[in-house]
């Protein structure tokens, strides 16, 4: 389909972008366009102005800043998945980025776009939640930091103001954790029915730390804190893991739709969380 006509601006600094966003009643940031363009083509939205971040230098790329891994908002999924730095310091994110859509989507779509779009079925927001990411956001008043838990507000809604731009994502480097992203979908290259992001640490035969976040089990990523607590201190055995994951869907509110019913998603979350933890533990 054909979008409604819109104005288009390609600024060369974040400041310009922010100013343009603030000056227009009805504007949208354009990153990789992989979520925004389908929405425009179906005429589900008709912004008057698109501000394309593609011309702003420095918004994409991966670097290490002390004990923090910093990923620019415009870094594509393909770059995230193949970056040596991400694979070394945040393998969970690299693994999840590699499961996003298809090759074309991964080469266009960006980490920042995925997080800002806040689709409940998107893979990367749950991963960022599991890794306790910090988002750096720039607005007219300058930069501020937002914790992952505070960034996702609701379905397709974030803490970003209309004239704010997500510029980078920061992750504390913690070594010695093993991770796994378990994505369950009907078709290869499709969105997750349920996804589970897991990071665990173990000492000897015991799980010493666990982080578990679920994709598509509610309007925003679900951090399964009770399961994390149940896992911590449990023996690293399949039986103990399964027992700890039984109630993983407590407090979730998955949708009932054409793809899957809510009760199926809940049961899947239980099975997949167990599998993801076992995978991460290598058992």
């Amino acid at each position, binding site marked *: *389909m*054909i979008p409604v006509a819109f104005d288009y601006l390609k600024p060369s600094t974040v400041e310009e972008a922010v100013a343009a966003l603030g000056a227009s009643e009805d504007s949208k940031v354009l990153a990789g366009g992989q979520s925004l363009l389908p929405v425009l083509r179906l005429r589900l939205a008709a912004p008057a102005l698109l501000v394309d971040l593609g011309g702003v230098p420095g918004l994409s790329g991966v670097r290490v800043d002390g004990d923090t891994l910093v990923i620019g908002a415009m870094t594509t999924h393909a770059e995230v998945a193949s970056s040596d730095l991400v694979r070394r310091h945040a393998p969970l994110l690299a693994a999840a980025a590699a499961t996003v859509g298809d090759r074309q989507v991964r080469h266009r779509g960006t980490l920042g776009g995925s997080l800002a779009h806040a689709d409940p079925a998107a893979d990367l927001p749950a991963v960022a939640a599991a890794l306790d990411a910090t988002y750096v956001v720039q607005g007219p008043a300058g930069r501020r930091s937002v914790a992952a838990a505070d960034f996702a507000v609701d379905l397709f809604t974030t803490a970003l103001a209309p004239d704010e731009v997500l510029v980078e994502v920061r992750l504390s480097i913690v070594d010695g954790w093993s991770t796994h992203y378990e994505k*369950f979908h009907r*078709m290869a290259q499709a969105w997750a029915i349920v996804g589970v992001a897991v990071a665990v640490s173990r000492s000897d035969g015991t799980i010493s730390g666990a982080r578990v976040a679920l994709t598509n089990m509610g309007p925003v990523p679900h951090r399964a804190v009770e399961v994390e607590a149940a896992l911590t201190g449990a023996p690293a055995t399949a039986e103990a893991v399964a027992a700890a994951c039984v109630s993983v869907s407590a407090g979730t509110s998955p949708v009932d739709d054409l793809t899957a*019913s809510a009760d199926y998603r809940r049961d899947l979350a239980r099975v997949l969380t167990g599998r993801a933890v076992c995978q991460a533990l290598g058992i």
Partner: protein
Amino acid sequence: MTAVVEPAAAAGEVGAARRRKEDARLITGRTRWTDNIALPGMLHLAILRSPHASARIVSVDVRPARRQPGVIDAFSGADIAEIQGSLPCAWPVTEDIVHPVRPPLADGFVRHHGEAVAVVVARDRDSAVDALEAIEVEYEPLTPVLDLAAASRDEGLVHPDKGTNRSYTWIFDSAQAGTGTDVADAAAAAEVTLHRQYIQQRLIPAFMEPRSVVVDPGMGEYTIWSATQIPHILRVFYALLTGVPEHKIRVIAPDVGGGFGGKLQVTPEEMIAFFAAQRVRRPVKYTETRGDSMLSAHHGRDQIQDITLTATRDGTLTGIDVKLVANMGAYLGLVGPGVPILGAFMFNSIYKVPAYRFECVGVFTNTTITDAYRGAGRPEATYAIERAMDDLADQLGMDPVELRRRNWIKAEEFPFTTVAGLVYDSGDYDAATDKALDLFDYAGLRAEQQRRRDSGDPVQLGIGVSTYTEMCGLAPSRILGALRYAAGGWESASVRVLPTGKVEVVTGTSPHGQGHVTAWSQIVADELGVAFEDVEVLHGDTRTSHKGLDTYGSRSLAVGGVALVEACRKVRDKARVVAAHMLECSPDDIEFTGGAFRVRGTPSSAKTLADTAFAVFAAHDLPDGVEATLDADATFDPQTFSFPHGTHLCATLVDTATGHVTIHRYVAVDDVGKVVNPLIVEGQVHGGVAQGIAQALHEQAVYDESGTLLTGSFVEYTIPSAADLPHFVTDRTETPATSNPLGVKGVGEAGAIASTPAVVNAIVDALRPYGVDDITMPCTPERVWRAIKRGGAS
């Protein structure tokens, strides 16, 4: 001139795995698709579609759209009420069929989501789409009739003026037809009875190239380009429906990107574009979006199948009784009513059954029309019988292959007249099945299945069997006539020999991805002794190919290919006379061997086709009474169908915790008769199997309770990609058809017919220990998971 180059391979072109000539241009897109066509002054159409499944149109006001920038015209059904007529149904299967009027543009009522309501004609496509929003339509929504079973009981009416939703009831009874005995007697005497109800979900053909049409009204001489499978049939209907004389209409199907039956239709959009061009007297183009396509291009399948098998305790079938309810959608499509009737001859499949009865009720609902989709009626029939055979084997405690073997027609019994009244000319079901079992390692997989069952493995293995046949090579005109189909089933070919010995073939078939250009070149190369590269194949333009019945029903090679052979042989007969004259002998002394006309006994004395072609071109010295041409036409009307067959075996791994199904091994052994090009056959089998697997596991068109199509894009309507499909092991047996000189049977639909039951049988087989005996397609992870929970609970 007598030095003849001997053809390299004595074996000839037919049978060679030639790469397809047309692929370079199709794959790179450096060709002409309808949507590429741009004519001077051409305007663009956009179509406003109904958001309701059933509503009265209170008013349509197109005037605001006419005032939008770039807009030339806007109109609704009422504006063309006098001229638009009704879209055709060419297959009214019964004398008293209920056949509601179907205007191209809705007039008064809309009867399915997506029905065309109004049209904008503008200078460019964007303006046309923008202006749609200015059209004001007031609807009075009515309660839609959506549930097929309820619709068949007339609970709510799609066309209240017709008084019923039942379009037709079509019955075949072997006792009445004299082809067998009475199913009631078989039922009364049955030692074993199996009754099942299977649901054939609604599918969307999802061809790669969306439909597109360009109409140039000229000065009353219409040229129409359409992404259609049926340029010839379309031209006839344009003439019949518009009153423009047929010779003033030229229809061109340029390269067409797939169809699967989905472009075997005379569409509202084709008629709307015609009327628009007539109104504005300029060329117009309409190209659908994928969303429009999924909503309004015809759908396929959608049947409720009740099947009863009766048998003796040792597994000998004694009767098959079938009752179908077939969803027609809101109207009748071009051949829609006939689709389930094609299945009527196939429920008995490869089995010897004394008694058979088939009854089909065609029913209207407030949904998009259904019509032909790869296999058209035969996949549905094959699904039901092959599922039921596996279930019967389970009930009898027999191996499913052995049950089939006990019942199928033996190689020495051909020709065999079936209980449905068809004469199968050839086949060897034992050979195909034995080969498949071997490739599959049937015994090994059964052992593995047992191991997994014994150990309570959360991942269970199942094996599905599907032995199938199909009737293709559509079709003997006389049989079509007896079935009340409006047209014939012949096909035509012309061979034109150019002065330098190159050959142009004009075919009445209309390829849209099948590779006719390649296969036809191979046939001509062998028949006329010319190089594969020296043959050009022309098709799809009614000005060059004025005569033909197009491409569907695995007919092109089995009917059109045979016409081509016959035309080539006429050319050969003409050239023989010329060659004899040149070689100064009698035509009776000439034989055509090694690709040339040779004097019997003196093979070095020879003339090629090129030699004779140039002699005919110069025409300086032709024998008296010989026309200065080698060209020839032929039309072939088959006496009977062809009957490909084969055995497909599928092993699935079912994750019982999540319901996820993985195809672990897939073996297809097909017998499609003589093979002209094994690469093309392989491609057709792969594509067909993929589509059949898609029906088993992935695809379904879903309407919500208000009749809105929910699966309106490829996000919701999930077609598999290569990443979702297993490695296919394919092989063949070759039992030539005796019904045509090429010995060919057709392969376009085989894979789609055979694979669906193989996959679902494999899933059910994996889960029988869990009390599962059926899963409604598509077998999504959730449905499999639910079946396990339900089965386990019972």
